[in-house]
């Protein structure tokens, strides 16, 4: 009897160890698959001056800071970096405001054309986002914010407008959040004589830190990752390029042989700060998405 129980316990233990070992093995293999490409990027960025494009090897022959120095001395990289940072920061404020405002209205107010506006927003969202790219380009060039006549500042201004202008349409996730904030708070404040504007600024906004951080994070990251609009609008004016356009051009057929490792260095320099930022705010990201998903 006693031995039987012992045997059973031992077999349970063995089973657990096996399943644990399998889990760890799978996780390790997958992690390696996910990390290796990124590691390879970092390694390539430190390649020696001879470069490593199409040399038939897996790792560079020697290591140096050569390509980082090249990046800052021979290309407009720092300029692209500042451009993107400027655009991202302005968008952070504008887009967040538009999105939060729209979401708050859709969640808290009941007015005649509310449902209609919601359906229109949904319909607009179903057109490919950059279908209107050509139209926007022509609209901007008719006021000299794009095309041959545009100045560098004008181009950057145009990009800011493009990124933040339509932010109101992405209200859905934030609306889901506002829906969960109890309406009795509003009612209590209204009894105390607060106006809707006061309720929004003094009661709802302070309670909405998670969703504001989420929206701000998304608005800030957007310009760093966008390639489509920036490439199309900015054209050949190198001084106005964003990091994405600049780096993409390093890999064009004409440049790739000379600038391959420079691309890696440039990629590392944007990947590191953004990754850190993202990891710090990861909690808000998950909350934002799942919060919205729970609401449907």
């Amino acid at each position, binding site marked *: 009897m006693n031995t039987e129980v012992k045997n059973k316990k031992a*077999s349970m233990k063995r089973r657990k160890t*096996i399943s*644990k070992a399998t889990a760890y093995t*799978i*996780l390790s293999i*997958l*992690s390696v698959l*996910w*990390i290796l490409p*990124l590691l*390879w*990027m970092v390694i390539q960025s430190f390649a020696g001056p001879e470069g490593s494009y199409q040399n*038939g090897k*897996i*790792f560079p022959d020697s290591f140096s800071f050569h390509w980082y120095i090249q990046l800052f001395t021979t290309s407009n990289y720092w300029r692209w970096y500042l451009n993107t940072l400027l655009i991202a920061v302005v968008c952070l404020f504008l887009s967040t405001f*538009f999105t939060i*405002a*729209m979401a708050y*209205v859709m969640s808290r*107010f009941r007015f005649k054309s509310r449902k209609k506006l919601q359906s229109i927003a949904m319909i*607009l969202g*179903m*057109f*490919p*986002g*950059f*279908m209107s*790219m*050509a139209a*926007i380009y*022509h*609209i901007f060039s*008719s006021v000299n914010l794009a095309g041959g006549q545009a100045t560098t500042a004008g181009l950057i201004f145009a990009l800011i407008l493009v990124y933040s*202008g*339509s*932010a*109101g*349409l992405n209200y859905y996730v934030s609306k889901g959040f506002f*829906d969960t904030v109890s309406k009795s708070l509003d009612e209590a404040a209204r009894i105390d004589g607060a*106006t*809707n*504007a006061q309720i929004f600024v003094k009661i709802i906004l302070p309670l909405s830190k998670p969703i504001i951080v989420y929206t701000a994070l998304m608005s800030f*990251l957007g310009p760093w*990752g966008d*390639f*489509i609009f920036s490439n199309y609008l900015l054209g050949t004016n190198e001084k106005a390029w964003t990091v994405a356009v600049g*780096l993409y051009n390093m*890999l064009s057929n004409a440049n790739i042989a000379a600038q391959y490792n420079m691309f890696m260095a440039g990629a590392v320099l*944007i990947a590191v700060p953004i*990754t850190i930022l*993202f*990891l710090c705010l*990861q909690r808000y*990201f*998950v909350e934002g*998405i*799942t919060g919205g*998903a*729970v609401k*449907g």
Partner: protein
Amino acid sequence: MKEFFTKLISQAKEFFGKLLTKMKAFFIKLKDKTVLFFKNLPQNLKKLGISIVTRIRDWFLRYYNYFKNGDIGVKLSYIFMGSGAFAHKQIVKGIAYLGIELLFIFYMIFNGAGAIRGFFTLGTDFPYSITDVNTGNRIPIDGDNSMLFLLYGVVAIMVIAAFIVVYFMNIRSAYETYEDSVVGKQPQTFRQDLKQLFDKKFYIVLLSLALIGVIVFTVLPLIFMILIAFTSFDRQHSATTGFDWVGFKNFGQLVGTTGLASTFFPVLGWTLVWALCATFLNYFLGVALALLINKKDIKGQKVWRTFFVLTIAIPQFVSLLLMRNLLGEYGPIMNLIVNAGGERVNVFGDTNLARLVVILVNLWVGIPYSMLITSGILMNIPADLYESARIDGAGKLTMFRKITLPYILFVTGPYLITQFIGNINNFNVIYLLTGGGPFGVYSEAAGGTSLLVTWLYSVTNDLQNYKLASCLGILTFVVCSVVSLITYRHSSASKNEEDFQ
């Protein structure tokens, strides 16, 4: 040991068998819904038509009654906007309305009327150049620009539409003030109106701020682009050589038996296959990974999760361009294969291979997303659910099947639909990896891995064939809206909006 594995295998078999039947049922249901959707379409359209007609009739009746029943202020406001406000001493409001009317009239005389005419002709005299007889130089002569004519035409139509809205607002407000005065209520002063804008009508302030951008940067360009689908705007018929209205000819080219159908339908098919694979593979594998990481006895869950989250944090164009080089013909992976005695191949040079590779790379990009989301949900499952299940004597496996899995599926259902739509429009992964290639299989800059949207981009960017790009955009929209109509219509999430509050 052996017995443990056979048990494990049988359990797995049972689980996947059930999963398979469930998925099968899902697709059958989807098919039924699709059939039903198209069967009911004419009936629903008819209903829609009738409701539109009755609405228009009611609307006419209402404004007829306003005119019949109103006082002189109301009656005058049909011609001079703001008269109703002036009649009740709302001076600022009256001036605002009258000012809008005057501005509109000026606009129409000096710009709008011409713009509307231009909208229909799209220009008649285009720029050309003549040779100076004395110097032999070419002298450019200015002329019309079809694109600007179309653009200004659209703007004029939007201005007129906005004016019509304000015009009827003016009549309604005049009538309401009149009605108030009949029952002896004081008309609102301008200050009261302003105050209301920050209280009862605060939504107007917030909305107009948020919507100006949407109208200028989304609605206006979109209307403009949609209209281009009905013109001959392309490289041969450019803005300065003139393009014209052609009706539905471009769509006929795309889906008809001649022309581009042999490119369009394969691209559409691959787009749908891609969206299905990208959505469901990413989702199920992501859920599996999340379950693995969140197993109770796994240590360092945060660290494991971070490994995968890195690919989300890094901007997509970086990670995708990186992957392109890593997998490229002379990339390190090919080098490894060659060193091991394999043959050097260009994985992006063969359509089927390239399709497989983009789906695999998309797993690398997408699994972390669904892993992260599922992890968030797993932590949110109410603990008392498990507690009561344990009291009822449920085993771990039962709890997983009866609580964890249904909960995840329930919460992420709507997310799957948005993901599907997102993948139909997934530009980055395809364009940055393959650029739509390999080329040569199809015509008009479409390649083996081109989705409708990347094709749209190439057509705009490389060929300046705006009319085709516009048609593709509209057709992508049609695909997306049919998919979401079929799936949304019966989902409860859209109906029970108020339940959560």
